Each structure stands twice: as structure tokens, then as C-alpha cells.
């Protein structure tokens, strides 16, 4: 209960940070900062709201998210190998 509310507060705070950073016009860093914050937020949701942190049933749960992320990154990376060097 307490952790849930704490996590929620952090999520709200991070949203605030993201919005204010976006207002400041950091040039190309604005993209990076916004994404880092988004990753951080989703990490909180995954670990606390979705209990990934304490999932013990199978070691599969540990690899699911890193796995799918690396696949997605490879998909994007390989696609960029085309579009960025065309």
C-alpha cells in the first residue's frame, strides 16, 4: 500500500520533470532526457505495479523485458542501417 503510493508519487513527479524539461528547450538532449525518464517510469511500473521484481515462478520472467527490448532495439537499429545510410 505504502510502496504503491510512493511509486505513484514518483511517477507523477517524473512526469512533472519531463514536462518542465520539455519546456526548457534542451535541443537534442530533450529527446534523450524524455526517453530516459520514460524508461525510468516504465521500470517503476513494471517492477512495482506489475510485480516483475518479485516474480519467482520461472526464470523466464527475469529475461522477458530485457529480451524484448533488445529485440526491438535490433529491429530499429538494423532498419536505421538502411534509412540513415541510403
Amino acid at each position, binding site marked *: 500500500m505504502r510502496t504503491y503510493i510512493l511509486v505513484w508519487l514518483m511517477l507523477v513527479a517524473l512526469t512533472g520533470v519531463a514536462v518542465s524539461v520539455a519546456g526548457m528547450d534542451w535541443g537534442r538532449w530533450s529527446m534523450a532526457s524524455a526517453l530516459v525518464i520514460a524508461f525510468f517510469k516504465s521500470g517503476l511500473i513494471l517492477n512495482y505495479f506489475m510485480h516483475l521484481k518479485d516474480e519467482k515462478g*520461472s526464470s523466464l520472467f527475469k529475461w522477458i523485458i530485457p529480451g524484448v527490448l533488445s*529485440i526491438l532495439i*535490433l529491429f530499429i537499429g538494423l*532498419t536505421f542501417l*538502411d*534509412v540513415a*545510410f541510403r
Partner: protein
Amino acid sequence: MPSFYEVGNRSRGILSWIFSTDHKRIGLLYLFSILTFFAIGVLLGFLMRLELIAPGPTIMRPQTYNAIFTLHGVFMIFLFVIPGIPSIFGNFFLPIQIGARDVAFPKINLLSWWIFMTGAFLAILSLFTGGGPVDTGWTFYVPYSLRTPVNVPLAVFAVFILGISSILTGINFVTTTHQLRAPGMTWFRLPLFVWAIYATAWVQVLVTPVVGITLLLTLTERLAGVGIFDPAKGGDPLLYQHLFWIYSHPAVYIMILPAMGVISEIIPVFARRTIFGYKAILFSSLAIASVGSFVWGHHMFVSGQSDLASILFSLLTFLVAVPSGVKVFNWVSTLYKGSIEVAPPLLFALTFIFLFSIGGLTGLFQGALATDVHLHDTYWVVGHFHYTIFGGTGFALFGALHYWFPKMFGRMYHKKIPYLAWAFLFVGFNTLYFPMLILGWKGMPRRYYDYLPQFHSLQLLSTIGSWILIAGLILLFANLVHSLFKGEKVGDNPWHGSTLEWQIPSPPPKENFEKIPHVERGPYEFR
């Protein structure tokens, strides 16, 4: 114990089948529905061959031909080879081979058959509605698929639905393999067929959604003109190709991995010895499934993608060829010092090795950058993929049918006829498809309704091959269908197999095992 044929569920007659959650009944549902679609696909292939028997118009008009090769591709790919082995034999045998009573989610299993049938129904409906049968090729490339007046929206939606069915099946198999293994059934005691289905299931779960979204976007593009793929609105048609092949290349491994799993089951049983290099075969499946997901760009070497991308994709393509080779070498070594009986299943397995090797090796020519520039979109490619899909997956399916037939139906087929059928199939197959490789090398493009006179003799030869092939096919299936009713009753283990499905009655009882077995040894230990 009564078999699963006798014990249904509360419903009766046909209802006890189409609403059954028994994995074996669902497997058989898939078997009969998929074979029906396959028959349609074969008929369409036959019609194409007739049209191509001579240059100039022969039996149909260009638009009809274009619709026919599209349907042929769509039916064969999405309704036959992709669901084929996993949905039929995976459903029937995966739970038994790991010592479980059913899959993890029996209801979802049934649901996925219904979704599959819905998708198939919509695909057929698309022929008669809207602007008529699709004429885009099974790849639905934009912008052509955005411009052609035919019923593309319904067709791509149908394929999207089929994708959902495939994802659900994949989820089911992954969970089943993780959760329902019998005590003592460690990961390294799993039969290689299970490993192959497991690896395939991951690919199904992870890449099918990508083609799903691609098709959905094509649909919205047609209906609402969103503009994401439409070059007239600034979209990039090559991105469609990337997204399409991100799925559809791994899809070829969805087709072949289960087939390879079947071969790994059949060879040790008929050589009466442990498989050579169990772990090597297992890890090569995983390697194919993982690395194979990142080679899609080899379909785009001349599309205008960057040279850098082409180079990397070519390299990766060559790397996935190695694990396929490892499998082939291990299979051949399994024959060494065995005690071999060339029963029909083994005959088909050996033929698989030969034909798949030709298919795979012709793939290498396409993986090489310089040669693919010439070979891309020619009959070489058509030859390549019929050798892999049909020579590979198709012959593995024949093998699987002959291998597991006694277990599934409790009867044995006539044992001599398959050899005769095989002879027709083998000769017909090579007469049909080998000329295609030569045609491709000589520069005959694919998806051609009409062709230049210099290609005539090889096209004619190829058409003759299709007749021989179909004769073999009819013989083969006639034998099986006949034996379904008239075949001799067999015991539980006619081949002396050592995996779990052979330790239970033929046909299996409803819950497979009276008592869940405790597994104490590897899958191919015959002594």
C-alpha cells in the same frame, strides 16, 4: 482404456469436435482444415502451370493469373505451411511427448482454431466481395496494394486474424513447455521435436505482431488514407518492406524448424540408435530462431536500401546457414553404424535432407550480394522456396504423417504404396522445380503471366513435372484415407520408438496418461 475418439465432451457428433478442448481433437481439426486449404492451394498451383505451358495466353487472362498466384501464395503460406506442423503435430504430440495431459490453455487452444477458421473464411470471402480477388502477390507490397482496385482490405485483415491465431498457439506452446513437463523431464531430456516447436513458438510470439501492425496500417491506409506508407503523401514504401520481412523472413523458419524437428524424431527411430549430437541440434534450432530474426534485409538487396544494410544482412544471412548445415551433418551421422530400416517415414526424411539441401544451397546464391542482384525476383527464387518449403516442410509433413499415423488413428497404412507414391513425388518434384532454377538463372522474372519464347521448353518441362507430382500426391493420400477406415489395427509401438507418445495406447486415451510418467532417461535411448 477408451481412446480420445470415444470419450468426447458433453456435446455429441460434430459438436464434440469443434468445441473440444482436447489437444488431440484440436490437432485433428487442424489436420483436416489445413489439408483442405492445401488442396485448394495445389489446385491453384496446377492452374498456374497450365497457363505457363506455352507462351501467350492459354487458359486465362492476366488479371486471373495474378489473382491465382496471389491466392496460391496466401493459402500455401498463411493457411498451410505456417500453421501446418505446429498446429497439427505440435498440438497432438507436444503435450504427450513432455508427459502432460493437455496444453497449458486448452480453451485458448480451441479459440485459436476458431480464429484460424475465421481468418480462412474472411480470406475466402475476400474473393467474392469488394473489387474481387487480390492481385498483389502474397507480399502485399505498397504502393501497388494501395492502388489496385481489388479487395485488399479484407484480405490483409484476414491475414491479420490468422496472425492472432498463430500468436495464441505460440503462447500456448511456450507456456506448456515451461510449465507442464512431467517430473524428470528436464530440458535436456526433451525430444528434439519439442525443442523445435518451442523455438518456433517464440518466433511466432515475437515477430507475428510486427506483420500484424503492418497489415493493419495497410488496411487503414486503404480505408482512411493515413499516408504512412504512401509515397504520394511522403511515406516510404521501403519501410513497408522492412516491416513485412521482419516477420516474413522469420516466418520461413516458422515453417522449417518444426519440419526439422520431425526429421530429428524419425531418423533415430529407424536407425535404432541415439541421435548424433543432441545438443548440437538443439542449439542450432535456437540459433536459427534467434539469428534468423535479423536477416530480413536479404529480400531487399535491389530495392534501394542502403548498401551498408545490404552488406550486413548478407553477412547475417550466411551465418544462419551454418546451423542448418550442422543439423544436416548430424542427421547423416546418425545413420552411421545404425541398424537402418527404410520404412516410409525414413524414406521421406532422407528425401527431406536431399531436397532441403538443394533449397538451402540455392538460398546461398541469393544471400550473396552480387548474385542476388541477378537472381532476385526471378524463377530462381521460386525454385529456391519450393525446394525449401515443399521439398523441406512438405516432405517432412509426409514423413510426419506416415510416422505418427498409427499413433493418431490406431491403424497402419498399406506399406508398399508409399514407395510408389514417393517415386512419383520425387521425379515429379524435380522435374517441376529444377527447371525453375535454370529459368531463373536465364533471367525469367517471377509473377509473369506471359514469357519470352526462349523460356518455353523449360516451362513446358516444369508443367509436365507438375502432373507427375500430383499423381504421386493422389496416390499417397488415397492410401492414407483408405487406411483410415480399412487399415490394419496396430499395437502401441509399431516402430519401437522410445519417446513418450509410443508408451501409451494407440490411439491415445483422452487424458493421455493414466498416471503421469516419471522420466528417467533421454528421448532416444533405445537400450
